[in-house]
């Protein structure tokens, strides 16, 4: 009783001073790698991630190619220097899982059935990690897929919500991810109104879970606008100086 009173008195403050439903600052740039078919660079808080997309191209090994659709292959990789105690560059169990999760999140948005027997490769390289890398990877990978000219049903925006010190918060950073009570990453297609990724780690009640998902969807809608701007920026900026002439 007295404990809950105290917590109500003192206003909850996040470690970086954000509001509970505020996203970290996000910048996305598309077409940063000339050697890839499509690429994107994202800064989401302190996360720095480069994504390159190749394809659709011939699938190797051929025996793994699907006869009726394209295979989407994702690689999530953290650079050794991306986290403070150096991390082994070899793929870990966690990397493999996040690669799979990225594939599941992106595949429903891609017209895979148009390219039978071929492969679409998505390589995400984390240069610096600060919590919520999987959501940032999905955000950047979507922009990179559009930049590669791969037909898509919709953009996939992704964002996490969670719980820390009994408060529901949006877009968890590294500290909140580790010290908080729950973390719920969500990937969402805003125009189709469909969720393509929903994970949870930690403990929340059913009501809290629902409001977390709704909060995350609101965050995804904000990220969707940023993704749109990022895609348009590549063409929009060229246009302005020409009109002045």
């Amino acid at each position, binding site marked *: 009783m007295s404990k809950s009173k105290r917590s109500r008195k003192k206003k909850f403050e996040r470690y970086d001073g954000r509001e509970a439903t505020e996203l970290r600052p996000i910048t996305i740039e598309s077409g940063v790698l000339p050697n890839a078919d499509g690429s994107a660079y994202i800064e989401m808080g302190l996360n720095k991630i480069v994504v390159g997309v190749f394809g*659709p191209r011939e699938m190797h090994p051929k025996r793994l190619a699907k006869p009726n659709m394209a295979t989407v292959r994702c690689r999530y990789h953290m650079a050794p220097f991306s986290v403070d105690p150096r991390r082994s560059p070899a793929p870990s169990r966690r990397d493999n899982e996040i690669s799979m999760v990225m594939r599941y999140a992106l595949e429903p948005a891609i017209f895979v059935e148009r390219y039978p027997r071929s492969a679409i490769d998505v390589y995400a390289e984390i240069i610096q990690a600060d919590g919520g890398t999987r959501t940032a990877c999905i955000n950047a990978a979507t922009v990179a897929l559009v930049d590669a*000219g791969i*037909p898509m049903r919709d953009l996939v925006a992704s964002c996490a919500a969670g719980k820390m010190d009994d408060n529901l918060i949006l877009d968890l950073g590294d500290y909140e991810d580790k010290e908080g009570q729950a973390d719920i990453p969500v990937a969402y297609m805003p125009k189709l109104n469909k969720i393509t990724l929903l994970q949870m780690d930690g403990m929340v009640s059913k009501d809290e879970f629902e409001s977390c998902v709704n909060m995350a969807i609101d965050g995804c809608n904000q990220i969707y606008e940023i993704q749109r701007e990022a895609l348009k920026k590549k063409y929009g900026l060229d246009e302005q100086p020409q009109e002045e002439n």
Partner: protein
Amino acid sequence: MSALFENRDLVVPGDVLYEGRIRTGDNTFRFEGKVCANRIGLVNYTQNMVSVIALEAGFNPLSGDLVIGDIIEIELGRWLVDIDTPEDAQLNVPDAIDSPFRSDIVMPDILDVGDTIVAKIVDMDRRGTPILSILGRSLGKIEEGFMMRLTPSKIPRLIGKKGSMVNMILKETGCSIIIGQNGRVLINGKTREQEMQAVSVIEKIDKEAHISGLTNRVQEYLKTIKEENR
């Protein structure tokens, strides 16, 4: 029953372009009765059709296309050629030397792995694999020149109406240019300067293909780089 964008607006995948009955053109799909874009591009409304002019798109092979590709593998009786398609193209021996395959033919002597060829797509087999031929004028192995790549969806702008754009570049720079529909362009000039002029013009087209008045701007640009070199 209405258009939801202005003509030639920039749209991204998932944008709803039209609600109601209408034909769907390039780079669009129908979802719950609405017409949506599936690539980034400029929307184009006509009387009875909605389409998107893609700014980024891979090469969609059609028979009759001229393409530039690399030999990546030699199999018995055929070469596999990378022409930036979802599946590698095939070049069969009869389509390369105009005689049937015999066991005494040494295939690497005709075309080896790593060679670059100008070829024509003569057919697509029933899986959709492009079949190439290098029989014909100006087709075959490339011996010299400068190769560059641009987005395949911008090749029509580089060619221009009835070849007006490429003819202008040919005339102004004095280079010979072979344009592959798959986005690879081979430039062959008398001097290095001529080639670099053509390269810079084509790079400009790749960057600004979606802005109207392209031909005039390229014409001016050609004039300025020619004066700089004088």
